[in-house]
Every structure is written in structure tokens, then in C-alpha cells.
């Protein structure tokens, strides 16, 4: 999280707060700076304030406190139609009484662009999303994926520098969604547009974004590139929310630089990286990704702590094996291994020892 004004930021939220009823804050002290050309995703559970932030940026909601800057200029008092921000809505919001071409032509008409130039731009935008032949159709005659493309083309046709997308892929089936994720990122990068993308789907956030802002409780919990977010979550909310995760509770026994030893509630000890803990005796939640758990002792360092585990279930998933184990009183401990030629298939009931590299296990806030 940044707290100072960033020179050269294209979009910037400065200490923004938002309340609808004057009693509770939906957005609490939001600070965010985005450089030009970035693809930033706001990710969070529903009610976390991410859509409100998007609506404030678009101008449909006003910030209760704080400044929103666009290209260095405050935009709090600029009405939405003068902000020049392209927007893609959750249900596409294609005007049902206009054809596809008329829909695309609309933002150009209100900008008083001449007919011939308008037609050329509309055609170019349609071609860009591979919908060149659909100009005369009505939105209702198109499939969900096609409507999605048109909505995208319409948000881009007037060449805005900033495009906002509010869960644009939510209504599509999985395969189409994955395809469109790719298309949207490709277009955004090719055209060099700055994009703010709101979603509650973490796969979408991880695969598409340059940076992801994880929202919860009206605050950005972590703002980082996808790999950092996944591998180095800064608090237990992010660790839980992004990807699959094993959590164990315990007390910090000792801290030694960038490693620490945590005593779990059943008395066993493990190695971890101290993130949100500062002194011995603090309660903590340690978090370890299922694919970073190791049960081949040869791959662990000799002095590493290990835990006793009982295999409860083996799930064959094709590319990976998934084991459910009982570890330190937790029956839902998950371990994943790649289905490699030398992979071991543990059988239910088998007792093994598991461990991990200290850097993969993070001691977070309790």
C-alpha cells in the first residue's frame, strides 16, 4: 500500500472513503496509484467495496472523503460523461433497441464525429473483436460471448485511455470465459490502454493482471503482481482467499532473522517465515500451499522440522494427485503432487512424515 502521492501515476486514489448511509464505511481509507498502461484487477468477495471503487472512478458514485485523480487532475467534480472513461458492464448493457453498429456508433455520435469517420471506426472496432459481419444484428440475436465482444468493442471504440470492466465475464461459461480472458488481456496490451478490472474470480485475476488489489472489508489487503500475491501473501485473508491453502494455528516460539519456529496447538513444531509476527509468544496462523508440502525426506534439509501425517483420502485428478491428510489435529490438510513418472501414490491409512522449506511457510496474523 502506498501512502504518498505518486508522481506520474495515471489513476490515483488518495485516502478515499465512501459511505452510503452515514453510519458505516463501505470503502475505508483507499490509497492506490496506477501507472499508464497497467492492467489492474480489483479482487475481493462481494461487499468488499471493489465495485464501489470502480463506480467512484467512473463517476456514478461520489467519494465521501478523499481525492481521485486521473492524469494528475482531481475528477471528483467532473460528471461521468466528461471523464472519457470506457466501461464494460456485468450484463454488457448493450442497448436493445439499437443494432450492434448503432451501439458502437453511439459514443462517436455524442462526440459529434462525422458519419464517414464514425463508420470506419465502428468497422475497425468490430473487426478488432472478430465481429465484423455482425453490425446489423440486434444484441438479442447474439450469444453471450458475442455480446461480450460487442460490449468490449463499444467501450474501446472512442479510444479512451482508461477502461473499466465490472465482472464482464461473469455470465459466460467456463470455456468461453477462459478464451475471453485471453482476448481482453491481448487487446489491452496491444492498444496500451490502462485497465481496471473488477472480479471475484481469482483465476481471472491471476491470469489477466499486471497487478491485483485484493479487497476485503473496505480496504486493499494486498496490492501485488499475481505471483507475489500467490506465493507471498501478506496476511491470512489473502492467503486464504487466493488459491488453496493449509492453515494451522499456533504460538511463535522463537524468531531468528527471517525464519521462526512456531509451536502448533498440538505441541509439534514447524519452521516458517515471520511475516506479521514480531516477537515470541504471539499467536499466529501459519499458511502453506498444498503443492509446497514435501513428503520425500531427501528433498528436505536435514535439520528441518517434520510433522506426522496420516493419509485419509487419495483423489486422482489427472495432472495432479491430491491427498487429504490428518496433520496436527487438522483433518482437512491437503497435499498436492504432480503426476510425474516417479510420483508416489500414498494409500489411505498410511502414516508418513511431511515437511517443507521454511521460506514456503508463512506465519501470518492470527
Amino acid at each position: 500500500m502506498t501512502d504518498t502521492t505518486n508522481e506520474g501515476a495515471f489513476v490515483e486514489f488518495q485516502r478515499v472513503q465512501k459511505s452510503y448511509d452515514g453510519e458505516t464505511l463501505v470503502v475505508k481509507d483507499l490509497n492506490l496509484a496506477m501507472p499508464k498502461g497497467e492492467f489492474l484487477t480489483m479482487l475481493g468477495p462481494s461487499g468488499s467495496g471493489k465495485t464501489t471503487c470502480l463506480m467512484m472512478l467512473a463517476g456514478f458514485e461520489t467519494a465521501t472523503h478523499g481525492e481521485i485523480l486521473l492524469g494528475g487532475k482531481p475528477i471528483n467534480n467532473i460528471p461521468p460523461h466528461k471523464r472519457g472513461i470506457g466501461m464494460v458492464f456485468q450484463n454488457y448493457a448493450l442497448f436493445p433497441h439499437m443494432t450492434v453498429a448503432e451501439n458502437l456508433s453511439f459514443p462517436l455520435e455524442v462526440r459529434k464525429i462525422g458519419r464517414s469517420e464514425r463508420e470506419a471506426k465502428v468497422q475497425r472496432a468490430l473487426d478488432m473483436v472478430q465481429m465484423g459481419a455482425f453490425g446489423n444484428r440486434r444484441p438479442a440475436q447474439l450469444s453471450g460471448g458475442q455480446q461480450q465482444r460487442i460490449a468490449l468493442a463499444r467501450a474501446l471504440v472512442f479510444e479512451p485511455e482508461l477502461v473499466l470492466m465490472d465482472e464482464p465475464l461473469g455470465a459466460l461459461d467456463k470455456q468461453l470465459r477462459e478464451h475471453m480472458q485471453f482476448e481482453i488481456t491481448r487487446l489491452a496490451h496491444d492498444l496500451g490502454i490502462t485497465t481496471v478490472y473488477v472480479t471475484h474470480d481469482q483465476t481471472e485475476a491471476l491470469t489477466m493482471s499486471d497487478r491485483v488489489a485484493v479487497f476485503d472489508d473496505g480496504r486493499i489487503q494486498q496490492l501485488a503482481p499475481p505471483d507475489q500475491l500467490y506465493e507471498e501473501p501478506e496476511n491470512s485473508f489473502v492467503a486464504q482467499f487466493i488459491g488453496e491453502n493449509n492453515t494451522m494455528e499456533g504460538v511463535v516460539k522463537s524468531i531468528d532473522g527471517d525464519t521462526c519456529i512456531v509451536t502448533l496447538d498440538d505441541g509439534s513444531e514447524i519452521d516458517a517465515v515471520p511475516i506479521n509476527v514480531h516477537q515470541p509468544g504471539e499467536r499466529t496462523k501459519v499458511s502453506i500451499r498444498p503443492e509446497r508440502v514435501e513428503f520425500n525426506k531427501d528433498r528436505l534439509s536435514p535439520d528441518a522440522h517434520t510433522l506426522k501425517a496420516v493419509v485419509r483420502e487419495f483423489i486422482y485428478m489427472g495432472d495432479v494427485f491430491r491427498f487429504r491428510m490428518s496433520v496436527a489435529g487438522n483433518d482437512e490438510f491437503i497435499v498436492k503432487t504432480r503426476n510425474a513418472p516417479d510420483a508416489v501414490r500414498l494409500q489411505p491409512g498410511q502414516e508418513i512424515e511431511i515437511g517443507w522449506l521454511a521460506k514456503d511457510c508463512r506465519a501470518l496474523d492470527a
Partner: protein
Amino acid sequence: MTDASQTAGPMLAADGTPLKQSLARSLRRQKLRALFLIAPLLIFVLVSFIVPIGSMLFRSVENSIVRDTLPLTVDALQSWDEKSGELPDENVYEAFVRDMIVAIENKEHTRLGSRLNYEETGMSSLFRRSGRQIKKLDPETDGPFKEKLIDIHDGWGDVKTWQVIKTHSVPITNGYFLNAVDMRRTPDGPRMQPEDKRILVKLFGRTLFMSLVITGACILLAYPVSYLLATQPTRVSNMLMILVLLPFWTSLLVRTSAWKVMLQQQGVINDTLVWLGLVADDARLIIINNQIGTIIAMTHILLPFMILPMYSVMQTIPPSYTRAAKSMGATNWTTFWRIYFPQSIPGIGAGSILVFILAIGYYITPEIVGGTKGVFISNRIAYHISSSLNWGLAAALGTILLAVVLILYWVYDKIVGIDNVKLG
């Protein structure tokens, strides 16, 4: 099972009967059940609505009374040329006396008199007054009757009398419909009514015109209210909706009478205007017992019928459309006119049809606040039903009204498309 499905010809079910037949049989029970469920309503509607309406519509052309009451006369008149300008022969008079004696016995001659009086004033008293004396005549011995009848009442010596009887002796007549459009049957075919009796076409025109004005006024008043209802949060819009529906819970008569109090020359509105000094005391506005009064009161009364369909259509327009338009750079006005308004048209259409059709047949309100200049065709129908007892004409007027509504509906369907009408 045989390989029936592979042979040519109709598809067969497992037991060899044609598939269609066995499907129909299996569905028959369901259909009977459905019929059984709607039977009470069906019978009720049939008995209390369709049959009376049908018989009422039939009255607009039914005219057997002349032939039934004067069968011999009607036959005898066949050979008389009504355009000759001469009185009929003695045999017509004789037949007429025979018919009348029977009719007087059955007390039917006055009814016939009233019926023919719709066509020619004076016929009613002619029949009533001659009755007693014709009764004394003996058809076998007292002839010839021509002179005697003319002695009894000189009406029988008038060619016109016999023309009216002959012209209206047909069992199915277009006479009532001609009357309904200010025309009448004459021996020379349909002719316009005399100038001073032409009121119905004007009344039809006024009814249509005022209904249009009322519909227009309702659109203008209802649109902003519906928009507010559709865009406010539920708590506020529920409150507003109660205010809109409040008039529905008050008797129509009470509301209309309230308008009478409001609109009179010594009423609330005029008093307020005079008190404010906007209107001089000796120049109080005349806003009741004329068209203005009817338009004001009916607009108020029909307003909810415009608001409700508009509201239910506007409610389905997602706010994301207007947001999308604004994000693309459209001003508030452009957004409204190019995006919101076109999508609200089905609501306007539905409300307009509803209000117009209700207005065109409205009766109570024009009766109370309309005076003589602000009444509708329905008031005329009511007059013929309950005062003049000319049910045939009332039925013809009603039929025309029904036809006008159906034609307008058809035109609307052609232009706007009835599929675009949404009631929610």
C-alpha cells in the same frame, strides 16, 4: 414390440394403435380436467356477459315488431308504390283495421307506436289516440275503412305515415345504425337527418377528441411520476406507490363529487384564485359543466391506469443502460432521449391503450361534471337505455363504440405492435 417404427406410414405405439391417437387419448383426461376447472367461470361469463352482450348487439338490427304486429298490412303494402305520393288502396286499410283489432286486444299497438315514433314524431300519439275508435269497428261489416280511418285521425290520410310503416317493416334493419350516424331510412334510401337532429356524429367526434386529450394529459403527468417510482429506492417508491393507489380505495362517485366541489365557480379553486388576486371576482373561471371539467376530472381518475404500466416497464430498464450511455460521453438529456425513452415506449403504449379505452366508454364522471357540453357518447347510450327506451339505437351506438375500439386496437397493433405492450 414389433419394429413398427421402421415401417412406412404413421408411427405406431407399442400396442399397434397410431401414436397420434394414443397421445390424444392420454391427453384427453388432462384436457377434461382443465375444462372442468374453468367450467364455473366459463358458464358465469357466458350467462352474465356474452349472452346479454350478444342479445344487445342483436337488438341494434332486430326489427320484427312491425311485421309481427301488422302482418296483413305489411303484406298488403307490398303492392303499394310508396314513391307515388298517393295513399294506399282500400285493401291496405282493411288489412290494417284487422291487424289493429288484434293488436289492441293484446295491447301491442302503443308499443308499435313508440317504436315508429323514433323514426317520425307523432306516430306514438297517432296509434294511441286511434286505438279506442278502431276497436269499435267490425272488419266484416263496417267497410270501406279508408274514409273512416281518416275521419278518426287525419294522420291516416298522410302518405308519410304509410311510408314509415312500409320502410320499417323489414325484420332486420340498418335503421338504428343509420340513426346512430345521424342518418335515417327513407323510401328513397338512406338520407341525412334534418340539421337540428344531427348530434350523434358530433358526440362521437367529441368523445374521441376528449379521450385523446385525456390520454395525452395522463402521459405527460404520469411519465415523471413513473420515472421517480422506478428509480427511487424501494422504501421511498413503496410510499409513493401508496399515494398513487390511494384514489383506488375511494369510491369513484366520491372522487368525482369532490371535483365538483373543487371546480365550481364558487368552489375551492376559484376561491383560491380570487383570493390570490389572479382572477377577478366577477370573472371566475368556468371549469365545470363543460369539456374542461370533464378533462380535468377524468385525467385525475384515470392517471393510475397510466402510471402502473409505465412504472412496471420502467422498472425493467436496468440502470446500467443509462450508466453505459453516460460513460460513453452522452449528456443527461441525450441519455434520456436516445436510451431511456425508447425503452419506455412499451409502457407508454400499454398505458395509453388502457386509458383511451377506459375513457372512450366513461360514463359517471362526464355525467356529473360534464354538463351538456362535456358529455360522452356513453351518456347518450345511457339516456336511450333508461329514458327514451330506444334500445335499438342504444345498441347500435354501443356496437359502433366497440367497433371503434377494436379498429383503434388493430391500428395500434399495425403501427406499434401489440407485442411491444407490456403490463409488467
